[in-house]
């Protein structure tokens, strides 16, 4: 079989969730498998990202570059057309992307164009057609077998496919880079237009990839108090997260939400302050290595999955904890 990995890039490099998708592609147990990477956009950063893709994993044999202004924004309509076009000429057995907001938006549309069922949020690969994915907010795991025609389309959960450390000799087996023939790419962009993107300029590391995540819930009571969470995160070199309740209360923007429908995280250390542990929140962080919970309610469900629990008032606990954590220069 041969696998196509659809990747996103930014600033001339492949984005971390896409690197996880590449890692997942190399988990497909097929001795003859080859991995191709598809990236698109325009400008010099596209070509830098293509070289990055060519050297970022030894099992990548081909990098396909679609250079078009129509693909510079992450709109589902032209992207789905592009992947469809590339599949028609490449005949891949698998197409993989990360299960982030880009992959989840684009890949089911691709699957519909190809008349196949996609598989969302894969956390485990048993064999080339059998996959594990969480259902019911992670309260059950479903093993599903794909029995349809090629391609088998997957989105993978990044936290389940860690990116391997770059091997020293990766330069020696650099993949070939070629341009996608876009002469038949006649996507009419008038039906959907990209207007803008507003993102929070955050100095903290990215929530999805941070080694430490510090999360606050509604018990923080205000956006002002939420700065305490930011201060702990800062001193631990971690990212800030929030519960749905804290986002809904307007303490922090939506892109910090951890949970079933927010970010899925699995850091080495997850510290939850004033988080009760609703099912949909646990779905987003239950695979963290070490979980710490601080809550004044001893019966809060979060304590059932915490490695270390402390029952107490946040506004007493946090200042004491800050005293013990050295300030980073």
């Amino acid at each position, binding site marked *: 079989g041969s696998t196509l990995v659809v990747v996103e890039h930014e600033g001339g490099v492949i984005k971390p969730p896409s690197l996880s998708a590449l890692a997942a592609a190399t988990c497909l147990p097929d001795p003859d498998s080859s991995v191709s990477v598809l990236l698109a956009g325009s400008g010099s950063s596209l070509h830098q990202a293509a070289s990055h893709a060519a050297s970022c994993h030894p099992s990548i044999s081909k990098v396909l570059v679609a250079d078009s202004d129509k693909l510079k924004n992450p709109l*589902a309509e032209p992207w789905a057309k592009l992947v469809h076009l590339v599949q028609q000429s490449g005949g891949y057995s698998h197409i993989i992307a990360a299960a982030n907001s880009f992959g989840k938006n684009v890949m089911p549309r691709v699957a519909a164009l190809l008349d196949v069922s996609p598989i969302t949020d894969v956390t485990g690969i048993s064999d080339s057609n059998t996959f594990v994915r969480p259902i019911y907010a992670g309260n059950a795991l479903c*093993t599903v077998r794909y029995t349809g025609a090629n391609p088998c389309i997957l989105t993978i959960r990044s936290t389940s496919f860690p990116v391997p450390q770059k091997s020293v000799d990766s330069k020696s087996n650099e993949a070939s880079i070629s341009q996608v023939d876009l002469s038949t790419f006649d996507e009419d962009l008038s039906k959907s237009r990209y207007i803008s993107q507003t993102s929070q300029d955050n100095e903290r590391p990215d929530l999805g990839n941070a080694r430490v995540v510090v999360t606050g819930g509604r018990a923080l009571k205000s956006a002002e108090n939420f700065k305490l969470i930011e201060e702990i995160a800062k001193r631990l070199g971690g990212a800030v997260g929030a519960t749905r309740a804290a986002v809904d209360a307007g303490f922090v923007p939506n892109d910090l939400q951890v949970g079933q429908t927010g970010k899925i995280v699995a850091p080495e*250390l997850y510290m939850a302050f004033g988080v009760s542990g609703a099912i949909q929140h646990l779905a987003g962080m*239950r695979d963290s290595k070490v979980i710490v919970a601080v809550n004044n309610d001893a019966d809060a469900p979060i304590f059932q999955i915490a490695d270390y629990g402390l029952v107490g008032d946040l506004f007493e606990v946090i200042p004491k904890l800050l005293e013990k954590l050295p300030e980073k220069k």
Partner: protein
Amino acid sequence: MKIMVAIKRVVDYAVKIRVKPDKTGVVTQNVKMSMNPFCEIALEEALRIREAGLASEVVAVSMGSSHSVDTLRTGLAMGADRGIHVEYSASLYPLSVAKILRKLIEIEKPGLLILGKQAIDDDCNQTGQMIAGLLNWPQATFASKVVLDKEKQVATVDREVDDGIETVCLNLPAVITTDLRLNQPRYATLPNIMKAKSKPIKKFTPEELNVEIKSDLEIVQVTEPPKRKAGVIVSSVDELFDKLKHEANVI
């Protein structure tokens, strides 16, 4: 303009999920079932658009066993004008759901199709994108704000994406899938529940719609997630700090 809303009957969000001992699925017998929360948000948005005078009719569609009619009645009690039930008792995957919706859209010709971004049972997050692909309609998934312009026949949609909010503008007809913060769905009042009983629900089967249900997926097994080992309750910040530093070695 007519708006179509697809709604799904699922295990209620507050029910504790139990996996069947024979690993064929989760227990759904004698379990409270409700409308999928994202579908409630989708229906609420359609109703608000109609109430703002930008749409003439809201048609709610549901698929599944005869029990789905209960969910449709809830939708009618919330304010949908009429319902369509496509009866099918075996499991339906998003590709088949999208194909059935395509047929219903050919019949009803709505200007907008609104769906929840995912169902909280299978967590697939696929149907809206797939129907948009089948129809070659533009799509705006994970919507947190929808502004319709009746004159220009466009919808401007804010989408919740990984690093913030993205805004797109779609020509109608279009598909929108809803995220949590789009709106707060209303409750059905008792008079409206009574009124809903007399609202029409049209029935179809996939055969009548000429949709062949083929499945390219097989559930091998459903299991419980691995349990985390029991943790400890510490008594002070000092103890917590000490454990994190010397036992877990994470700070």
